[in-house]
């Protein structure tokens, strides 16, 4: 619900745009606007908003004089127009229902705990637990900020990513961690990423090509097929690989309203079909200093989600609509 102040500002902007577009704002409309603003000024209690009102009223007062009219009464500080107590403008999320502030605050306390732990060596299980909590809290908090601040989801995510301490993983570490079929027993790899890393020449040579030669199945869950298409053509033209290696590549695109949230983090699942028996690990976002073994529920959930998506698209002829998501298996014929 808009506050009185928001309504005044919206009308002021509308009137101003009329002035800038060489269309004269009607004096009567301005006078009415000033009159209404004075009437409502008592309800505008925040000190920051009241000062903004003064600027606006001064602006319109001098505008009217420039049109040869008398300077109007614009005093919001006389008795009857002044609130009993002035307040301070509240934080954007402060006016929202409790559950919204809840998730943001929980996230803040989580961050404090994480900062305390960051300088100590911690066990993989403990870290996984923390990340599980983070995983539960973050999407809720992001959604809340999106709604309350009326910003796009990607904008909020971008801000959030910049606020996280950035320690980008070196390529060599990534290659070492993802490993290959020969040294780590890899048979199937699922990659869920906004931007797949496999196109990087060094990564491609040292990992992707080796894995394809070892017949490792690659399934990419991506937002946009274009990057996968590039990879597909790169493999197709690779003289060290044959056309048969293209069969080890598949791609599922996930788009729709909630796709940005789906790709909040990049990760890969190693041998997902064996997850329940062996408890394999997932690798975390590229922003982390190193890949933490990802055990327990977080990996299980990721596997289940991607598995159910994959099964559904295969079952329903390559294209399904999930809740707020459009999922599609990209056919190879189309890529050729």
């Amino acid at each position, binding site marked *: 619900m808009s506050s009185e102040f928001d309504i005044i500002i919206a009308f002021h902007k509308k009137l101003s745009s009329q002035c800038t577009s060489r269309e004269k704002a009607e004096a009567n409309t301005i006078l009415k606007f000033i009159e209404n603003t004075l009437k409502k000024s008592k309800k505008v209690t925040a*000190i920051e908003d*009241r000062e903004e009102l003064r600027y606006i009223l001064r602006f319109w007062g001098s505008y009217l*004089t420039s049109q040869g009219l*008398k*300077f109007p009464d614009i*005093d919001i500080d*006389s008795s009857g127009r002044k609130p009993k107590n*002035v307040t301070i*403008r509240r934080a954007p999320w402060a006016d929202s229902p409790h559950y919204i502030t809840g998730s943001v605050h929980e996230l803040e306390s989580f961050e404090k705990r994480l900062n305390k732990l960051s300088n100590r060596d911690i066990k993989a299980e403990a870290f996984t637990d923390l990340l599980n909590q983070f995983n539960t809290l973050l999407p809720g908090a992001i959604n809340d900020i999106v709604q309350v601040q009326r910003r796009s989801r990607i904008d909020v995510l971008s801000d959030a990513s910049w606020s996280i301490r950035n320690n980008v993983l070196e390529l060599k570490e990534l290659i070492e961690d993802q490993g290959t079929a020969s040294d780590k027993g890899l048979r199937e790899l699922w990659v869920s990423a906004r931007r797949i890393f496999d196109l990087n020449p060094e990564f491609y040579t040292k990992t992707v090509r080796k894995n394809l030669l070892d017949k490792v199945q690659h399934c990419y869950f991506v937002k946009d097929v274009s990057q996968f298409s590039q990879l597909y053509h790169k493999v197709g033209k690779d003289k060290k690989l044959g056309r048969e290696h293209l069969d080890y590549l598949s791609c599922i695109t996930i788009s729709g309203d909630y796709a940005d949230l789906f790709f909040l983090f990049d990760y890969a699942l190693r041998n997902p079909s064996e997850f329940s028996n062996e408890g394999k690990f997932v690798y975390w976002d590229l922003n982390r200093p190193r890949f933490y073994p990802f055990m327990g529920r977080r990996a299980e959930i990721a596997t289940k989600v991607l598995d159910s998506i994959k099964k559904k698209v295969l079952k329903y002829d390559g294209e399904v609509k999930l809740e707020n998501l459009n999922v599609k298996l990209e056919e190879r014929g189309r890529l050729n």
Partner: protein
Amino acid sequence: MAYEGPLLAASVVRALSSIPGAIRDIKALLSGKEINGKEVLSKMEMLQKALVDFCKTEAWLREIKEIHQILQVIDTQLEKARAEHIKAVSSGQFNQQAYQMSVIQEVWYWAKLNSLTKLISKAQSIEHVEPEPLVLDKDGKPSGPAWACRFIVLGQEIDKALDAYDNGVSRDTKKISETMNSLIQHVKIQMYLADERMREEAEKFGNELYKLSGILEQI
């Protein structure tokens, strides 16, 4: 709350319109066969009075210019207080810690001592711009021009808020900032209006002089 006194006082307009007649009469009397000295003298006195009245325009302009000048000084002096408010709200929310009370106290001390007192004293002796001057009764309650009364009230409010802060009764800096903002707004509006008055007066004065010069040429 604008200036309520008339633009180009009626006496000045009357004076301006009577000048050509007086000159015409004197000319006729002096060019007659028998010159009546008394009659010429009386017409000359009329012309003198008209010119004296006409010169009151200068007094009007001088007075409003003087008020404008004082307002401008107050505005400049309060600029630091405005900067404090802007600094305090720079994060989008008024930060009470960022609003430096030592700066505000210093700003107010000098603005009040140097300029506000001067403005009030000027308003008390006003002759031309307003129909009546500012009057303060024995309790300090003001009457007279609304804009001048407002300066008194706002000044008292700031004094009260700063006293409460100094005595530890209230550490509410947002209230002080709000009152300071009200005063700054009032200064800015009055300065703008004084400026407008001067412009209008100069325009009207120019028109009258133009008319007069046309008539004088034809005599």
